């Protein structure tokens, strides 16, 4: 019963956000300065050629009509046709999504496998009174959390690919080529997560319920897994949506640095040449991905900590 209400409320919220994203990407493209028809027809085409292009693209229709056509297309899985290549946008995306998805998955895995344990170990060491450790931890993670991703990317590329030549500097074929970019996008969010998890875990370790658990004299492993961990990861989960969004943002930039042929490079290129349908399609896809991940996080959070189900309604 409670679950049904929770899921329905999340579904309504999800639908609402998706509609908003769709509308915004449409408006963004149509209110942006510049005339797509002229771009398509070519800079030196005459007025008549531009007019023909405009009619072919449906840009002579009233705005609401264009919007309805666009939404109708979405339901048929049709994101329009690229101005630049004349290919369907879905086709363009399908060709470029691989490297980006690889980067996102690797990056997320790195964030979880490094950020979370670092935060928890950090809390335990802090509590055991290693003062030097606390200073080193806060200093290093603080620095890492504030360096822009393109700087980290450039630095990593220079060190590992150019100076030591351990890993490929560019490309999107092999898994080795994905390591540096994945590290580059993961460092910052992993550092923020480690900081958050440390503070939260310290709180949990001092809480009355952990004192109760200590009074039961359970094995240390059980104390941490059953009593501390579930309460300290809620913070990290709650951050999961934001982290994923920043990961996607980071991927777009970092793909440039490592010359990976993914959605990010395609997006930037399409903006530069004014290939609006492609821009629209990619923005919509990334937006949907972020929103869906957020919804998924909410559901997982509801399972781990049932109180959030009631609070977040």
């Amino acid at each position, binding site marked *: 019963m409670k679950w049904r209400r929770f899921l329905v409320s999340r579904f309504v919220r999800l639908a609402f956000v998706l509609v908003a994203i769709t509308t915004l990407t449409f408006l963004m493209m149509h209110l942006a300065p510049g005339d797509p028809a002229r771009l398509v027809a070519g800079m030196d085409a005459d007025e008549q050629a531009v007019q023909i292009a405009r009619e072919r693209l449906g840009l002579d229709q009233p705005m609401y009509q264009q919007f309805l056509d666009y939404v109708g297309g979405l339901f048929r899985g049709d994101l329009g046709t690229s101005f630049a290549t004349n290919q369907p946008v879905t086709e363009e995306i399908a060709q470029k999504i691989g490297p980006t998805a690889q980067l996102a998955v690797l990056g997320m895995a790195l964030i979880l496998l490094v950020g979370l344990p670092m935060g928890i170990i950090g809390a335990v060491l802090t509590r055991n*009174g290693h003062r030097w450790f606390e200073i080193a931890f806060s200093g290093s993670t603080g620095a890492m959390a504030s360096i822009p991703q393109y700087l980290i990317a450039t630095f990593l590329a220079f060190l590992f690919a150019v100076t030591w030549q351990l890993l490929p500097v560019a490309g999107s074929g092999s898994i080795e080529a994905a390591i540096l970019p994945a590290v580059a996008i993961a460092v910052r969010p992993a550092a923020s997560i480690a900081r958050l998890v440390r503070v939260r875990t310290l709180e949990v370790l001092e809480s009355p*319920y952990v004192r*109760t658990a200590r009074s039961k004299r359970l094995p240390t492993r059980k104390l941490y897994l059953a009593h501390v961990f579930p309460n300290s990861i809620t913070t990290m989960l709650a951050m999961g949506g934001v982290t994923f969004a920043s990961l996607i943002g980071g991927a777009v930039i970092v793909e440039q640095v490592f010359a990976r042929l993914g959605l990010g490079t395609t997006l930037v290129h399409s903006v530069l040449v004014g290939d609006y349908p492609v821009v629209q399609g990619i923005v919509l896809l990334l937006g949907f991905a972020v929103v869906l991940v957020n919804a998924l996080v909410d559901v997982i959070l509801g399972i781990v900590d049932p109180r959030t189900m009631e609070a977040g309604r």
Partner: protein
Amino acid sequence: MNADPVSNDILLDVRNLSISVENRDEIPPLVRNVSFHLNRGEIVGIVGESGSGKTLTSLAVSRLLPQGLSMSADRIDFDGHDLVGGSDRELRTVLGTNLAMVFQDPMQSLNPARKIGAQMIETVREHRGLSKKEARALAIRSLEDVHITEPAKRLKQYPHELSGGMRQRTMIAMGLMGEPSLILADEPTTALDVTVQAQVMQLLCDLNDRKGSAVLLISHNISLLSEVCDRIIVMFRGEIVEDLTTAKLLAGPDHPYTQGLIRAVPDLNTDRGVDLVTIEDGQFDVEREMNHA
């Protein structure tokens, strides 16, 4: 003070317990040379103003002092186990089962992310090797013992689904799982409203009656303690200033501080028209009165 150390009626024997802040020699000990004992099945109260060291004393006995504090004692003997010299490893089972802790804040003392059932059964699963099924059956009986309705359903609920009074009774039921010989209750009713307070106190007395568990009951409220305790220990600024039977207390305590505590508590006999005595420096100068005494 008047303990007979060879009597095997003694369940808990504490001698010269001191607690101080680690690496801070300039801070005087928070608890100084505290000695007291508890007999089997006895209900003993510890009373004293805020900050007098009641909680720290009970945490030291249960070896749960917070980080940064250290204790020393000539002897803390619980049910034949040496709590000063013994290692955590040796004492795990004893402290995990024979000693039950009930804390002040029932809203915060149960793990919010875990079901009641999981929290209740883990002690006996760990220390007694009970199967899940046996442990659940025991948990249901234990919840019945503290008069919680629909116990089977409660096991599947989370703490936030229960009221404050129910959570405190659940805490007590959780402690009962290990068949404790001592229940250490630190202000178990302070966070509850008045009618529920009475129920929880009544429950502790009942359990003491039925199961023979001794209770060490900590409170600010000397009149509440005098209703249920056999004996009352009075603490003031980290020391025990008086240890007397309730009968003697009611007849009139010797110590001026204890007299002050009694006057400070409103009860049915208090004349509401007269201002309550407050124990604050200046208004009630204990040290001066102590020197007079």
